[in-house]
């Protein structure tokens, strides 16, 4: 099987893209897959806070700048977080200077960056034998996230139940994902427990969500205070393998595998 590239995107910030990306990657690693998780949110990098023990020679920024090849960026976290599989991470440079540098890039640079991202398919999936590359993107219509969407095979759109978020996600479907003919699935995150309190309620909720989006809803993830408490400090599904959140993410991983 040739590996797949998954982009995790959303219209608004704070929907839980990073948390879902990390736990989805961990879920695949647990089933023995070789996964690479990349932080493509150059405006607000976040993965460095989670994987702080090891440092790579270079940042993902440097790879896109053409300063180094991708192998110099990848950090092998398999020892601590592999759990039977392989977990590689590529981090975005969190320094203010780097963020400023990345926001000031011109169109020509973005075009080259797209080329560098597209070539990851041959270097990491075909030659490197990885099963999944998960791209954690920045919210909204920005160069880095659209580059990630063009590169990806599958786009997972994380949305909350906030009206502006739902409207924005719907608009992005017709004005972005469809235009690039991407396989797209919706993840409804932070759903209030009341909506999912019984099977009947859950069915009613699923029906409502399906009527809102023209896309398949791959997961409805309840809002768990415990997950919020993890505060991006550790990989939740790794610490709590029996928690309903972990179960939901494992189910999602299976669905995406067959998607």
């Amino acid at each position, binding site marked *: 099987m040739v590996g797949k590239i998954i982009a995790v995107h959303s219209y608004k910030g704070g929907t839980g893209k990073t948390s879902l990306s990390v736990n989805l990657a961990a879920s695949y690693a647990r089933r023995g897959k070789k996964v690479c998780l990349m932080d493509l949110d150059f405006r607000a990098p976040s993965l460095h806070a989670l994987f702080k023990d090891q440092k790579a020679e270079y940042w993902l920024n440097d790879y896109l700048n053409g300063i180094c090849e991708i192998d110099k960026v990848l950090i092998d976290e398999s020892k601590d977080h592999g759990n039977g599989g392989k977990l590689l991470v590529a981090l975005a440079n969190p320094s203010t200077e780097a963020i400023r540098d990345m926001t000031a890039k*011109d*169109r*020509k640079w*973005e*075009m*080259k960056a*797209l*080329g560098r991202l*597209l*070539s990851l398919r041959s270097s990491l999936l075909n030659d490197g034998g990885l099963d999944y590359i998960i791209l954690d993107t920045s919210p909204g219509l920005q*160069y880095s996230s*659209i*580059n990630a969407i*063009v590169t990806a095979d599958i786009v997972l759109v994380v949305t909350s139940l906030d009206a502006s978020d739902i409207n924005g996600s719907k608009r992005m479907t017709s*004005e*972005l994902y469809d*235009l*690039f*003919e991407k396989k797209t699935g919706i993840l409804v995150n932070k759903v209030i427990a009341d909506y999912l309190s019984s099977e009947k309620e859950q069915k009613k909720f699923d029906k409502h969500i399906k009527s809102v989006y023209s896309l398949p809803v791959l997961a409805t993830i309840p809002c768990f205070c415990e997950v919020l408490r993890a505060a991006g400090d550790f990989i939740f599904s790794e610490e709590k393998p029996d928690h309903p959140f972990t179960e939901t993410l494992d189910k999602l991983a299976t669905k995406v595998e067959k998607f």
Partner: protein
Amino acid sequence: MSYNTVYTENTLRTTTMAAYRKLESKSTQLLEKIRENLEQLNEKIDVMIEIQKHGHRELPENLPEALDVMTLLSLPDHLRKTAVTLCKLEEATADEVAEQTKRARAVESGYLNQLVVMGYMKKERRGRKAYFFVDKEG
């Protein structure tokens, strides 16, 4: 029939076959040449149509374009598909693009030439093949 007659007949058959094959390969070559010429004509017509549509002022010399994602988004659907495919392949012939998009070669050739005229791509002839690529340095 004497041995000599058989021998002559066989030689004659071999010579005729050889002549026939030569003729066949010649006509194939000729057809190939005609096809090539037709393709080049088609490309030229595509270019002329584009120039007529946009006028000389918008030609690439005056408007260097980058084929970034925002530009990809602004392209009409049929051209976007071709452009994204070429971005993925980096460099390709119309045949190779057509194989990916599952559209006819002649269609892709038209779209690729249109994108060249619009200034988003470059084209280079190497021998009998035309290669298209996104100019990242220019």
